[in-house]
C-alpha cells in the first residue's frame, strides 16, 4: 500500500483518464496517442487494485473545495467494486480503441466519459454526482455526435432530460434539508418524514424524478429508445465501455436511492406496500421485467449485429434492475454479481463485434458467415461470451442469473420470475443466431481474405474473457466481495461453491463434469466416426449447383416466424412516438416564434400595454 499514498488514490482514479485524454488529443501523433490513452486507462486499474485492502476495510475520503461547492468523494467497498469493474472494462476498451480508432478526438471523449463514470461511482454528495454525471453524458454524446447527428441528439436530449430531473430532485432535497451530502441529507430527510415536515407528494416527486434520471441511463423500457442508436452508431470498442459501464452508472443511481441514502428507505416505506412488497421497489421490479421482455424480443428480430447487441445489453441491464426491485438479500446479491458478469461478457461481445467490423467492414448478418476458421481466437472469445450471456454453467453469467432466479422465487414474485425465464430463453435464441450467422455456415466469397483481429484488440478481449471464466468457476470470490458491502444471505462455503437458503451451486464439480464430457466428445470425434473433411460450399442441394445468391444458410431473417407472430406488437414503437413528440415541440416552437415575434411594432407596443394593464388590474383591485 505504500506505493500509492492514500491521499492520491481518489484523485488519481478520478482525473488521470481525463488528463491523459486531453494529452492524447493534443499530441495527435500515431503511436504517442495510443500509448498515452492506454496509460490513462491503466492508472485507475492499478491504483484501485493497490488500494483494495484499505478500501474494503475502511474508507478513503477526498474533498475538493471549489468555493461554489465542496465536492466530497469516498472510496468504500461498494464504490470500489463498481469502480474496479469500470476500470477493468476501461483498460479493455483502451486496448480495443488503440486498434480500431486512429483519432485523438475519440481518445479525448472516451477517457472523459471514463472520468465521468469514476466520478459518479466515487461521489458522496449530490453536486459532484450531478457534475460527473453530466461529464459522462457529454463524453459519450460527443463520441456518437461524430458518426450520426440524429442518434446523438436523441441520446443527448433523453439523458439531459434525465440529468435535469436529477438536478430538480437535488434542488428539492436541498430545499428541505439544506445540505447536499448524501449522509446528512438522508438523516434530515428521515427525520422530516418521521415528523411529517415533508408531504408525501413531495417525497413521491423526488422518487419519481430520481427514477426518471437513473432509468434513462439504465435504459428502462420507455426510456431505452436512445440505446440502439447510441450503442450502434459508435466505435465498437468504445461501446464496450459505453454499454458495459455507463449503464451501470444508472444501476448505481438506483443503489444510491435504495441503500446509500437510508432515509430514502423512508420514501419506500412511506410509499406503503402493495401485495406485501414495497410499492417503490415493486415498481422498479416491474420496470426491469418489462425491459427484459421487450428488449429481448426486439434483440431477437434484429438484422444488424450492433442493434442485436444493443438491445441485448438493454435487456441484461433490465435483469439487474429487476433484481434490485425484488429487494431481498439474495436477489440484490445476484444483481451485484450480474453487474460484474454483464460488464465482462457484454464488454467482450462489443470487442468481438469491433474485431468483426474492423476486419470485414460489414455489420449485417447476411454478409457474415464461416469466420470460425479465419478468426479462431476471436471465435474462442465469442464462445466464452456466448456461454456467459446465455447463462451456461462454467461461465460467470450462470452464477449471477442463478442467484437472481433464487432471489425472485424466494420473494414470492412468480410473474417476475416468469419474465426472467422468458428473457433468458430469448437471450439464448439471439445468441445462437449470432453464433450461427457469423461463425458457422457458408462463407461469402468476399470474406476469404479476412485475417485474425489485431493484437491489442485480442489483449483487450482476453482481459475481459479471464474474469468470465474465473468468476464462473469461482463465484465465491465475487460473492465474498459483495457480502462485504451488502448483507446478502448468500453463504460462501468455499471459493467455488455458494449456497442460498434454497440451494447451493458447486461450480467446481459442474466444470469438471463439463471437461470430462468434452473430452469424451473429442475422443469420439477423432477416433470414432470416420468423419470426412467436406468443403463448406459443396453441400448437396437436390441436383442444382450451390451458387452465391441461393445458398443454404439462412442468415437473413433468422426468426421470420417469430416476427410475423409479434407483428401486432411491433406496430407500436417507442421510437416513432418520441420522433413525433420531437417534431411536435419543434412545430410548437415555430408557431410560438411566428406568433409572438411577428415583426409588427404595433403588436409589440400592444404587449407593453397588456403588461401595463396587468399592473393596473393588480393595482386597482
Amino acid at each position: 500500500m505504500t506505493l500509492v499514498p492514500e491521499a492520491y488514490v481518489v484523485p488519481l482514479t478520478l482525473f488521470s483518464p481525463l488528463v491523459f485524454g486531453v494529452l492524447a488529443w493534443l499530441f495527435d501523433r500515431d503511436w504517442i496517442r495510443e500509448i498515452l490513452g492506454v496509460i490513462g486507462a491503466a492508472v485507475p486499474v492499478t491504483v484501485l487494485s493497490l488500494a483494495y485492502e484499505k478500501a474494503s476495510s475502511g474508507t478513503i475520503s477526498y474533498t475538493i473545495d471549489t468555493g461554489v461547492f465542496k465536492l466530497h468523494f469516498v472510496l468504500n467497498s461498494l464504490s470500489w467494486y463498481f469502480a474496479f469493474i469500470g476500470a477493468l472494462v476501461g483498460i479493455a476498451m483502451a486496448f480495443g480503441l488503440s486498434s480500431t480508432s486512429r483519432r485523438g478526438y475519440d481518445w479525448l471523449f472516451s477517457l472523459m466519459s471514463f472520468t465521468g463514470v469514476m466520478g459518479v461511482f466515487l461521489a458522496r454528495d449530490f453536486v459532484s454526482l450531478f457534475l460527473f454525471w453530466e461529464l459522462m453524458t457529454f463524453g459519450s454524446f460527443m463520441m456518437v455526435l461524430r458518426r450520426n447527428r440524429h442518434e446523438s441528439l436523441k441520446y443527448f436530449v433523453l439523458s439531459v432530460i434525465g440529468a435535469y430531473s436529477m438536478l430538480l430532485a437535488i434542488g428539492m432535497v436541498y430545499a428541505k434539508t439544506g445540505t447536499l451530502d448524501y449522509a446528512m441529507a438522508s438523516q434530515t430527510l428521515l427525520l422530516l418524514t418521521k415528523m411529517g415536515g415533508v408531504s408525501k407528494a413531495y417525497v413521491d416527486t423526488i422518487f419519481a424524478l430520481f427514477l426518471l434520471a437513473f432509468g434513462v441511463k439504465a435504459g428502462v423500457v420507455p426510456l431505452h429508445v436512445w440505446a440502439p442508436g447510441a450503442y450502434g452508431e459508435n466505435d465498437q470498442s468504445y461501446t464496450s465501455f459505453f454499454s458495459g459501464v455507463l449503464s451501470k452508472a444508472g444501476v448505481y443511481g438506483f443503489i444510491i436511492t435504495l441503500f446509500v441514502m437510508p432515509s430514502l428507505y423512508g420514501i419506500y416505506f412511506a410509499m406503503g406496500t402493495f401485495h406485501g412488497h414495497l410499492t417503490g421497489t415493486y415498481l422498479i421490479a416491474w420496470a426491469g421485467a418489462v425491459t427484459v421482455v421487450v428488449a429481448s424480443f426486439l434483440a431477437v428480430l434484429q438484422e444488424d449485429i450492433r442493434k442485436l447487441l444493443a438491445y441485448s445489453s438493454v435487456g441484461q441491464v433490465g435483469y439487474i434492475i429487476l433484481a434490485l426491485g425484488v429487494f431481498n438479500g439474495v436477489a440484490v446479491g445476484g444483481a451485484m454479481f450480474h453487474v460484474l458478469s454483464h460488464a465482462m461478457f457484454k464488454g467482450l461481445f462489443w470487442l468481438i463485434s469491433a474485431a468483426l467490423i474492423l476486419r470485414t467492414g460489414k455489420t449485417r448478418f447476411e454478409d457474415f458467415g464461416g469466420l470460425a476458421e479465419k478468426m479462431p481466437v476471436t471465435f474462442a472469445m465469442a464462445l466464452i461470451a456466448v456461454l456467459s450471456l446465455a447463462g451456461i454453467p462454467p461461465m460467470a453469467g450462470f452464477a449471477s442469473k442463478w442467484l437472481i432466479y433464487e432471489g425472485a422465487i424466494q420473494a414470492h414474485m412468480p410473474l417476475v420470475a416468469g419474465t426472467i425465464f422468458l428473457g433468458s430463453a430469448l437471450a439464448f435464441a439471439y445468441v445462437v443466431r449470432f453464433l450461427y450467422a457469423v461463425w458457422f455456415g457458408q462463407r461469402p466469397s468476399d470474406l476469404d481474405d479476412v485475417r485474425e483481429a489485431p493484437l491489442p484488440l485480442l489483449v483487450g478481449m482476453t482481459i475481459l474473457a479471464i474474469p468470465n471464466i474465473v468468476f464462473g468457476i469461482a463465484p465465491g470470490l465475487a460473492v465474498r466481495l459483495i457480502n462485504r458491502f451488502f448483507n446478502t444471505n448468500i453463504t460462501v462455503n468455499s471459493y467455488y461453491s455458494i449456497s442460498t437458503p434454497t440451494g447451493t451451486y458447486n461450480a467446481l464439480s459442474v466444470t469438471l463434469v463439463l471437461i470430462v464430457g468434452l473430452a469424451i466428445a473429442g475422443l469420439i470425434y477423432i477416433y470414432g466416426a470416420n468423419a470426412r473433411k467436406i468443403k463448406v460450399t459443396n453441400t448437396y442441394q437436390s441436383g442444382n449447383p450451390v451458387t452465391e445468391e441461393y445458398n443454404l444458410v439462412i442468415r437473413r431473417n433468422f426468426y421470420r416466424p417469430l416476427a410475423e407472430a409479434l407483428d401486432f406488437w411491433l406496430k407500436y414503437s417507442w421510437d416513432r412516438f418520441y420522433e413525433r413528440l420531437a417534431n411536435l415541440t419543434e412545430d410548437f416552437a415555430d408557431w410560438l416564434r411566428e406568433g409572438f415575434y411577428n415583426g409588427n411594432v404595433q403588436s409589440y407596443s400592444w404587449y407593453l400595454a397588456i403588461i401595463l394593464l396587468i399592473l393596473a388590474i393588480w393595482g386597482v383591485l
Partner: protein
Amino acid sequence: MNGQYASLLVALPLISAFFVPLIKGLGGRAIKYYLTLITALQAGVAAWVFKTVYTTGKPIIVMAGGWRPPVGIDLYIGHFAALFVLIVALVSFFMAIFSFDSVSTEPTDKYAMLFLLLMLGATGMIATGDIFNLFVFMEITSITAYALTAYNKTGEAAEAAMKYIVLGGIGSSFFLIGIALIYGSTGTLNMAQLAQLAGSINPTVIKVGLSLLVFGLAVEAELFPLNAWAPDAYQAAPHPVTAMFSAFVVKAGLYALARLVYLFSHAAGWDFILKLLVIMATLTVFAAEFSALRQRDVKRMIAYSSISQVGLIALALSVGSQLGVQAGVFHMINHAVVKTLLFLTVGYVGVKVGGTGIENFSGLGRKMPLTAFALTVGALAAVGIPLFNIFWSKVWIIIASIEQGYAWEAGVVLAASVVEAVYYLRLIHTMWFGGWDGIRIRESLPLGTIALFLVLLILAIGVYPNPFWTLAKSAGTDIFNVSRYIANVPLMGVGP
C-alpha cells in the same frame, strides 16, 4: 489619488468622445486606434477603482460638485459596480479591437463617438446612486443603442432601430412617470434616502410608482413580453455592438432593476412585484429558447440564447433570497464572458465568410479552426456542460429558486435549457462535421488572442470557480443588503 478620481470613469469617455470631432480629419484607421487607446485607458481606471474598492472593502462614493448625497448626485461604486465597470471596460476594449475588421460603413468618427458613449451610459447606469441620474444614463445608453443599431444604414437595421425606439420611448416615459410619483411622495431622488423613507410612503403611491419603475426598466432589461425588440436589434447591429449589447447593456438594466426592487423592500405590495418578475423571467427563458430552435441565422439564434440567459439572471435576481442574488451576479459574470466570445466569433465569421446564415458555418472546423474551436467552447459553456463556467451558476440558480419554493419555474427553465442544448449542438455538428468548400481562411492574430483569452477564462472559472464566486458573493450582498447600502452612503441630515 483619493476616491473622487473614480469620477474619471465618467469624465474620460466623455472628454475623449468630445475630442473625436477635432481629429475627424485623420481618417478611419487612426480613429479606431484612438478608440482602442481610450477603452484601454478606461480599463486601467476601472482596474484601479476595482483594486481600491476590493482592497479597502469600503465602496467609493463620488460626490459630484462636492455636495453630500441627498443634495448632490453621488456615484455609489460598491462591490458590484466596481466589478461590473471593469467588465464593461474590458469588453469595450475587446470590441474596440474587433471593430478594426468588422465595422467598415463610412462615418467611423461618429461610430467611435457612439461606441464611447454607449460604454459611458452603461458605466453610469451601474455606478449612479440617484434615480433621475439613472434615468439620464439609461437614456444615454438607449439613444446610443438606437443610433448604433441603425448604424449599418440597411433596411433591416433601420427597422430594428425603429422598433427599439418606439418601445424604448414608451418604457422611458413611464419610467419618468414613476420617478415623478416617487419624488412627489418622498421629496428626494437619492436612492439611499429613498430606501430609508420607503416604509413611510403612502402604499398606493409606492405600489404604482414601483410598478412603473420596474416596467420602465423591464423594457431595457428584456423581460418576456417587452423584449420583442431585442432579437431584431441584436441581429441588425454591427457585430461588436451586439456583443456589447448582450455583455453589459442588458446587465446594466438588470442591475438597475434589482437595485430598485431591493431598495423598496420595506414598501407595501413588494412581494407581488417579485412574483410578477419571477413569472416574466421564466416566460422569457421559455419563449426565447423555443424561438431559437429552428433559426436559420446563427447571430439571431445566439441573440435569442442571450435573451434566455438574461431571463435566467432575472429569475435569480427576483427570487428574493441572498443566495439567489449572488447566483444571479455570478451568472452575469459568466454570461458576459461567454456571450462576448460567441458574438465575437460569430461576427468574425460573418465578416470573413460573408453573412451569418447557418450555411456559412458548415465545415467551419476546417475553414477557420481557431474561430470554430472558440465558438464550440462558447457554445458548450452556454449549454452548461460541466468544467465550463455557466454550469456552476446555473446549478446555483436552480437550487436557489427551488429553495424559495419556485420548483415549477425551475422545471420550466430546465426544460428550456434542454432545447438550448439541442440547437447549440446542431450548430457544433454543422461546424465540425458539415461539408465545406475547401478554402481555408487566415484568421487575424489580435482577435485570435482575444478569443483564446476568453476561452482560457471560461475554462479557469469552470475548473476552479472559487475566486470568481467570492467576487460574485460580495457583489450580490452589495445589492441585496440594503441596510449596508444606506450605512455606506454619507447622507446629510436634510430631513424635515
